[in-house]
């Protein structure tokens, strides 16, 4: 037992002496988000190519309405701002404020998903109706999956930033910052998606 503990002690010392390095977890996350962005880039490229070379067959219906996606864009942009507020609050050790902002952000994410589903159920075309319908559902669905994962992570962060026993504190900001970066990334993708799918 003592030997195990002493070896841990030396390893710990080694860690402090030799292995002091900057925190590069954020660097890894950014690399991952670039990779994730390339997946979307592939989808966008496919969609734009279809748009350029594959005409919509006669009688096929592919029409999108703007109100819901515009509302969704606003929701996500506001949620980015509220997330930022949460980070600022946590930095000043105001954990309960931070939790409030985080829950509000997650709430906005959930509203986004509900609106998205509402749009799905009221569109005049289904997944297999035509090429553009399929691409529309694949792109928005893949993005919706990202929003779902993001919302779950925000809820976990919100729970973990509670005052007593929470692991996300002003000393351990990384989880919050990581999810925040991810959330901004998902927002950015949505803006591009909104422009390409709805406005072009």
């Amino acid at each position, binding site marked *: 037992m003592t030997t195990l503990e002493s070896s841990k002690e030396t390893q710990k010392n080694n860690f402090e002496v030799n292995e002091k390095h900057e925190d590069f977890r954020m660097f890894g996350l950014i*690399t991952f988000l670039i990779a994730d962005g390339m997946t979307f880039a592939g989808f966008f490229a496919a969609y734009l190519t279809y748009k350029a070379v594959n005409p919509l067959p006669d009688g096929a219906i592919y029409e999108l309405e703007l109100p819901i996606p515009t509302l969704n864009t606003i929701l996500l942009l506001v949620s980015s701002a509220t997330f930022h507020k949460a980070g600022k609050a946590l930095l000043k050790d105001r954990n309960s404020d931070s939790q409030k902002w985080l829950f509000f952000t997650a709430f906005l994410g959930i509203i986004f998903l509900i609106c998205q589903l509402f749009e799905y159920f009221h569109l005049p075309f289904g997944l*297999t109706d*035509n090429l553009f319908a399929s691409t529309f559902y694949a792109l928005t669905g893949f993005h919706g999956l990202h929003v779902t994962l993001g919302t779950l992570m925000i809820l976990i962060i919100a729970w973990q930033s509670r005052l007593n026993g929470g692991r996300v504190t002003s000393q351990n900001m990384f989880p919050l910052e990581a999810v925040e970066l991810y959330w901004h990334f998902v927002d950015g993708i949505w803006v591009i998606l909104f422009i390409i799918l709805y406005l072009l």
Partner: protein
Amino acid sequence: MTISIDPQKSDKSLQPKGWLRYFSFSLDHKVIGVQYLVCGFLFYLIGGTLASAIRIELASPMSDFMPRDVYNQVLTLHGTIMIFLWIVPVVNGAFGNYLIPFYVGARDMAFPRLNAVAFWLIPPSGLMLVASYFVEGAAQAGWTAYPPLSITTPQSGQIIWIMSVLLLGGSSIFGGINFIATIIKLRRPGLKLMQLPMYCWAMLGTSLLVVLSTPVLAGTLILLSFDIIANTGFFNPVLGGNVVVYQHLFWFYSHPAVYIMVLPAFGLVSEILPVHARKPLFGYTTMVFSIMGIVVLGLVVWAHHMFTSGTPPWMRLFFTIATAFIAVPTGIKFFNWVATLWGGKISINSAMLFSCGFIINFVFGGITGVALAQVPFDIHVHDTYFVVAHFHYIVYGGTVFIIFSSIYHWFPKVTGKMLNEKLGILHFIITFIGFNLCFAPQHWLGLNGMPRRVAEYDPQFQFVNQISSLGALLMAISTIPFLINIFLSMTNGKISGDNPWDALTPEWLTSSPPPVENWKGEAPLVEEPYGYGKKLSEQN
């Protein structure tokens, strides 16, 4: 009461010791490297068996050894296993994990846990891939899985194939993120980028390609699986889809994948040649720039695989020129290796022989590559055995030769024991003769119009095909001396000492096999990893 122990470190001290650690969720980069190599080699044996089956079938013009659809399934599985389970994991994962932390002067990779996850994705997805052969409707559309073939043939095996490749792609991306973070962020203080051994640069370039292009393949395969499962029409012309879009997206990954397979081999050969020729690596800076040039150009040449897919003329022109340009950085690297050997004090051992074999084979593969970039020639030999010969010269004659060379070079490092040189040279001779006997005649077959991926052929090609099959038999036999060699050395090998090659790169400046965490004290600062041929006083 709080106990503050770094969880990562405590995990490490509790991990199993001895050979059992190779079957554990180890976080040690050296263990993970060996896990990658052994796992990859087992799949290489499976893929090699499939290759032998293909060559037995092709020894006679009719499909008498196996039915035609089984032939297609076998060649699909052969290609997928060799690329995704042998070459990519071994040349990146195995040697990268083992060597990169040494080269940057670190005790482990940047994200050890992610590293272990990346490795442990491979065995289950490999088993899935092999299992996909046994379900009804095994994948038979080739490793490219081109629609409409992949969506019209029986599909359950194809879906398992897609899932498996998605997992392997995920593993590859995690590995790539880890390598980039390790090389950029985890360098020992004082170690400059331009002092890194060449393999680090090769892995940095490779990992950039992995991170930028593999996700596109993942997205494409997700769309393909929608076509198969949900009856959408992304790539199905009957439903208004576009097969050429699949080809563009697929080759956006799969052409860089060629560099993902061969750039690390460039790096490894740049480590091996200076040690055994006792000369500094020639043209370090040009090597670095040509690697990065290959990375940039490698991303914009994918459509040269699609010259017969109705590609518009401007696209043909652009991709022909871009592809021809890649010959420039590659040529620079080739001449640098030759110049490294020139006037060196060369020791003829297995590692050196395999590296020289690589240089010879790679020139062949490179020249046919430039030829294939030219549209008129490409249209003539598209989808013939000329292409098969070309890419086997790159991936087998190039990369697999370097994998063997690296095993001979680093085996003493990993195990502390020497491999038998006589058996190693025998292994090289049989492999080299067998390989060239197998694939050189296929250039002729392709030029004369024998199509690839077909179980039957015109009887006039029989004699040349039999020569090729004889070569394949030699390649299969060549594995035997290698396996005997490994077995004898593991059980009863000569003790190598810490640095049997008198090498200067950092991994040799610790004991062999290295301790956990790589160095007893602080990591050494190696400013000149290739400072051979200088007086000892100058080195210090």
